[in-house]
């Protein structure tokens, strides 16, 4: 089977919904059920990038798990973090993959800044929401834009994401590729 490794429960929930969309679009196999079982949350970026945290998954590699896709946020370059920003995040994940040395196919996808930032970029009412964000100075409260995505989800619970937006293309491509040879 395949495994998607992400940072936390919000990412897990987002990936689950994206997979449901891809199943509906018939671009991933229709016999895949219980999406949660394909997604493992590492409870934070520092855990995700720490090779010591993979003891349980390591037991499954090569036996049960044939392909892995890491999905995580790059966060901000100015963060006091050795893996903050896109370039440093890429460097960290590539080092991790090297350290893990799993003899299976491993790939990664990094969100620009973070999941909430990424999602806001795909909203059809993006400008209105950004006006709201600056009016209430929401970034001063939380620069990760979590508040804004929460407001959006509360207002439009039936349409939390617009998966047809072009910004989703790259992650969709990675997921379709992940499930390509999967036979359950």
């Amino acid at each position, binding site marked *: *089977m395949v495994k998607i490794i992400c940072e936390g429960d919000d990412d897990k929930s987002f990936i689950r919904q994206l997979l449901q969309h891809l199943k509906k679009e018939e671009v991933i196999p229709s016999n895949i059920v*219980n999406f*949660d*079982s394909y997604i*493992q*949350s590492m409870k934070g970026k520092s855990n995700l990038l720490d090779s010591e945290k993979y003891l*349980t998954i390591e*037991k*499954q590699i*090569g*036996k*049960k798990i044939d392909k892995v896709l890491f999905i995580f946020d790059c966060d901000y370059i100015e963060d006091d973090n050795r893996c903050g920003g896109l370039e440093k995040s890429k460097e960290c994940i590539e080092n991790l993959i090297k350290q893990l040395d799993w003899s299976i196919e491993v790939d990664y996808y990094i969100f620009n800044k973070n999941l909430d930032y990424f999602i806001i970029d795909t909203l059809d009412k993006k400008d209105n929401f950004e006006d709201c964000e600056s009016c209430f100075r929401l970034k001063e409260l939380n620069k990760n834009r979590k508040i804004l995505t929460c407001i959006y989800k509360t207002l439009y619970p039936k349409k939390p994401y617009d998966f047809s937006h072009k910004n989703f293309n790259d992650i969709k491509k990675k997921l379709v590729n992940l499930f390509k040879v999967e036979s359950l």
Partner: protein
Amino acid sequence: MDNYLKSINIKDFKCFKNFEANGFKRVNLIGGKNNVGKTAFMEACYTNISSTNIDKMWTVISSIKFRRNNLEYLGEVFNLDTMKKDFESLAVINISSNLNISEFRLLNNNGKKEYKFKINNKEIIININDFSYNIERDKKIQFIDNFGLTNSELKDMFEAVQKKDKEEVLYSYINEFDSNIVNFKIIGGDKPQCKVDGEYRDINEFGDGLKHYISIICSLYACANGYLFIDEIDNGIHWTQLDKIWEIILKISKEQNVQLFATTHSKECIESYGRISKKFEEKDISFIELGQKNKKIESIIYESDEVIEQIYQNQEIRGW
């Protein structure tokens, strides 16, 4: 504990070829898809633990064959020849563990048939015409198959409860399972009966789950300082009783020093196992996931915290 089976290497036994697993704990639950070899894995462990001499090895293999084929045996006459035929059908057994080495091979040299046994450091070759054996069974090693215990077997297990003065404990567990039942006795030699509404009724008049539940509790006492194997542990048990069963198993297996192996297909059973282990902070447990890769059987053994984490994350651990 020193007497526990901790690792096993099954070079040859039924569907297993060059299979290795280690990290078994006091209580071990086994999951996997149909026909992956969950029961055969337990039978290999059972054979290896039991086979401390030829009689015991022959007895355990015969009992495994009998259990698997018992419906076909109905009405047949049992004799040594039937047993030999069954035993020979396995042709090769080669299992080693941290406890024992158990090997059997049928040799055929130009029509001269011989049995070759290797048990720990002893190797014996016997012409099959000269072979005979005595039934020798270690009572502290029991295997409850998916048909459950017979009345006679349950009677033997209940004797252990009586010898340990644990009848009251058993009655209270039975009462928690079904509050209408106030007592349990073996009446008329080998008839397990439960008391309901002031009257003793044959256990077979109740649901299969009750007999299975009582069998598990009694067997735990009978296997003190030994081993208990249970195939399809949740057979006939309603999901609301699973937490109770695991609580009992964790408690008595610790108190009586019993190593337990059990199989299941049920997600509810695995979740209950994780939940109760967490509740009682029990670390001496494992979950053994069996699966196949390129037609070879492989295992993944999860420790206590890993089982809980896999369940919490809704990960699939019932085989691949």
